[in-house]
Structure formats: structure tokens, C-alpha cells
């Protein structure tokens, strides 16, 4: 039985009067690909952002790679070093080239030498398929290329876990495939991934577990094949009928 690298117990996140996440418990096994789907406002992105403390949980407990997530900034930074994140809006640093985007955190957080950082950066750019764009600025890249640079930037920190927050939702349809291909390769190489996405094809083919959330709670979870063909819950059936067309 593969150990769980992320353990979330009874997670709760309130924003003032609104409870975005209401008692969510889930485990992520090492090397698995967990895909969270659900309607807008279901709290799926919030759960993801709690894992690396971009949102502060108001209840429950999260343990990442044996480190309990608390308010202690040392713990938070330790966790963030092991967890890479890819955002819907890419969030590349526009004043730096692609290469500089990827080497910056390596140098100032991991304290690597510039030459070593550069080598690793170029390796990751090769891995995502755009080594020739190393000296381009984000503004000169297409959306799909920018997102791939963002993935390379996260990978260069050699994290144990990669979080994806709707990585293709801001992309033109033609570019979605190139990013999903990179993510699929990553999954095959054994990376532990937690993805929030609307891409059902990806979820079906790549996920080792699907979690369906609605209104801050997990409605149904399970093996992707079973989930898509024989959903148990009524709410799940409704959701699937709306999105699969």
C-alpha cells in the first residue's frame, strides 16, 4: 500500500460568512494523480490552495510529506519547497525572460549556483518542449507556451508534489492539448499530482482517482472509469450530464 503523501482531515475554510470548504477529507498516495472536478464555487480551488497555504484553513488538519501545516512560517516554507503550483493565469514574472523565471527561485530559495540553476532550467524547458524560448519574455510567448514555462518553473524546484489549479482554463482551445500532453508525461514519470480541472478527457485518461465536489463538500470519489460510467450519486449524474456533450 503506497503511503499517503498528503493527508487532509476535515478541512474547513470560511471567508467571513461564506464557508467555501466544509469538512473535506482526502488522502493523496505518493505517485498518484488526483483530479478534483466540480461546478464553480464548489471549493475545489480553495482545497488546492490550502495545501500550500496560499489560503489559511480555518479548521481541520493538513499533513504534507510528514509536515503538519500550521501558522508557523518555517513549516509553511518547508512545505512550499516540496510543493510546486501551476496557476490558471500562469503568473509568470513579466520582467524576466523564461530562463530567468525558472532560475530565480532556484538561486534565492534553493541557493543553487547560477550555472547549475541554468542547466536545470534548460533541462526543464526541454522537458516541456520549448528550449528555444529560453531568452524570450512572457509577453512574446503564446498562452500555451507561457503555461509550459510556468510548469517548467515549478518543476525546476524539484518538488515532490505538483498542484495544478485549472491550468488550461485560460487557454485557447488549440493550445490546451500541448499543456495536457506535458501534464500527462509528468504523470507517467511518477510525479504526485493534484489537479483541479474541467478537462474531462484528461481526468478520464490520466487520473488515478477522481473527486467530485459541490458546495464545499466531496460528493463522490473513486476510480475514473467507474466514476464516468456508473456514478452513484444523483448530483454526480446531473453534473456529468451537463458537462459531457
Amino acid at each position, binding site marked *: 500500500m503506497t503511503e499517503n503523501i498528503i493527508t487532509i482531515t476535515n478541512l474547513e475554510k470560511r471567508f467571513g460568512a461564506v464557508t467555501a470548504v466544509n469538512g473535506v477529507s482526502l488522502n493523496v498516495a505518493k505517485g498518484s494523480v488526483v483530479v478534483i472536478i466540480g461546478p464553480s464555487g464548489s471549493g475545489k480551488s480553495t482545497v488546492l490552495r490550502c495545501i*500550500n497555504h*496560499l489560503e489559511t484553513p480555518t479548521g481541520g488538519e493538513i499533513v504534507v510529506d510528514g509536515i503538519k501545516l500550521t501558522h508557523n*512560517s518555517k513549516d509553511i*516554507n518547508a512545505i*512550499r*519547497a516540496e*510543493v*510546486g*503550483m501551476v*496557476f490558471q*493565469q500562469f*503568473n*509568470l*514574472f*513579466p*520582467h524576466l525572460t523564461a530562463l530567468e523565471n525558472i532560475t*530565480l*527561485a532556484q538561486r*534565492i*530559495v*534553493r541557493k543553487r549556483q547560477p550555472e547549475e540553476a541554468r542547466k536545470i532550467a534548460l533541462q526543464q524547458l526541454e522537458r516541456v518542449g520549448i528550449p528555444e524560448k529560453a531568452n524570450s519574455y*512572457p*509577453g512574446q510567448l503564446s498562452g500555451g507556451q507561457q503555461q509550459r514555462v*510556468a510548469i517548467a*518553473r*515549478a518543476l525546476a*524546484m524539484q518538488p515532490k508534489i505538483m498542484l495544478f489549479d485549472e491550468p488550461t482554463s485560460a487557454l485557447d482551445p488549440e493550445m490546451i492539448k500541448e499543456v495536457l500532453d506535458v501534464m500527462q508525461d509528468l504523470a507517467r514519470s511518477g510525479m504526485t499530482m493534484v489537479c483541479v480541472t474541467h478537462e474531462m478527457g484528461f481526468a478520464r485518461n490520466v487520473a488515478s482517482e477522481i473527486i467530485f465536489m459541490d458546495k464545499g463538500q466531496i460528493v463522490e470519489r473513486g476510480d475514473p472509469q467507474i466514476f464516468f460510467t456508473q456514478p452513484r450519486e444523483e448530483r454526480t449524474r446531473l453534473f456529468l450530464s451537463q458537462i459531457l456533450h
Partner: protein
Amino acid sequence: MSSTDASLGKRGPFLAPQGMERWPWWLLVALLLGLMIVYQILTNQQMGAAFGAVAVGLGVTIRVTLLAYGLAIVIGLFVGLARVSTNPVINNLASFYVEIVRGVPILVLLMYIAFVAVPLGVQGVNSLGEWSLANLGLGEALVNFKVRDFPNEWRVVIALAFAYGAFESEVFRAGIQSIEKGQMEAARALGMNYFQAMRHIILPQAVRRILPALGNDFIAMLKDSSLVSALGVEDITQKAKLYAASTFLFFQTYSILAFIYLIMTVLLSRGVRWLEGRMSIYRR
């Protein structure tokens, strides 16, 4: 003609000015007047003399502007950062400074600093000197430091920097807050701490955005440097006052004074405009 044509009025819908309507007439007239004044300075004896008398103060004007502005920028950066800080002590101290200083005319601030703050400061330095003399055996210079040894020019530079620092801090704060949240999130997600994120990601972008505003404030500082004349420091304004009072050539002297300021501010304005153009190329 349909009723809609009539309702649009005689000139119809708004048309961008064409041909001679587009010329910057104001600039042409201003340039003409400028050339006339230059000609006068070169040929008319009184104008020439007035120019000579006033221009002597240029060194002081430029020095005060550069020093006060440089200090104001440094103050602005730190106070701006303090204003966006989540620490309530730092945040409130900064807000207190900004709100109070922005609400007082600079001339009043100058009087306060020149005649209240500086003497108090000198007293403090004296006390420090006495203590160090008694306990460490040195510091005689500190004890003997007198208020009148503190140059007026320094007092004005401090006052101007103190006043403008409050405004610049708002410019920095606006710049920092204009950077979208995702930048800080990406930086933190990569493991950077707040200061690393500020230094490498937020501030470089924020500063680029606020350069035009900072440029405009520099031009304002150049004009406010004329306040040194309130303390008798001999910049171009003070020189003009003295010259005009002794020769009664008010028209010539003050025209030349205004002319000198205008040349500097118009040139700087063009510079700021050029800077804005460069900024918009770099940003997506």
C-alpha cells in the same frame, strides 16, 4: 435632411481636428515668446544683466532639488512598504506620517522644521555630546554644535524631503498594490519569503510602472525648491528677489526667473513623456 442630422448640430458628430486645427498653437506661441526673450537677453543690456544676476543661483536650485528629491524617494519607498505592511504598528506609524504631512502646506512645514525641529535636534546632539564627553571623553564637537551652525539650505532640503516623502510613499504604495495578486502568490508558492518576493518580483515591476509619476514629482520638486528663498538661501528665486529689489527692474527680473524655470520644467516634461513611451513598449 432627417431629424437626426439636425439634432447633431451645425458641425455634425465630433470630428478629430484636421490640418491646421491640429497644430500645437500653444507650443508655437510659447516658443516664439521664448525666442523673443532669448533675443532680449542677448541684446538688451538690462535683460542681460538681470539674467546674469539670477542665473548665479542655478547651482543652489539644482542641488536642492536633487538632494531633496533623492531623500524623498528613499523615504517614499520605505514608508510605502510600511503602508502595505500587515504589521499594525508599522502601518499606523506610516499612515500617521502621510496623512499629517500631506495636510500641511510645505511652507508651514518648512517653518516648523527650520525653527522647531532643527533646534530640538541640535539640543539632542548637544546632550548626546555632553553625555559622551562625560563618559567617553570625546564629543566636544557635538557639544559645541550650535543651531546657527546648521545651514539653512540643509533645513530646507530636510523639509522638502519630509514633505515630498509622504506623497512619494503614496505613489510607491499605489505601484505596489497595482501588481496583481498572482505575482506574489507565484513567488510565495515557489518558496520565496515576503522580502524576497518584494525585492525580486513586486518592486521591479512596481517601480517601472510609477516612473512617470515620479518624474512628474521631480518637476514639482524643482518648482518647490523656490521655497528656500523663504529662509534667504540664494537660489534663483532669492537672487531674483534681491536683484529686483535693488534695481526695481521687476518686469525684466521676474520674467527671466519664470523663463528659467519654464525651460527646465518643459525640458523635463518632454523627458518624462519619452520615459512613458519607453515604459509602454516593455509592458505587455
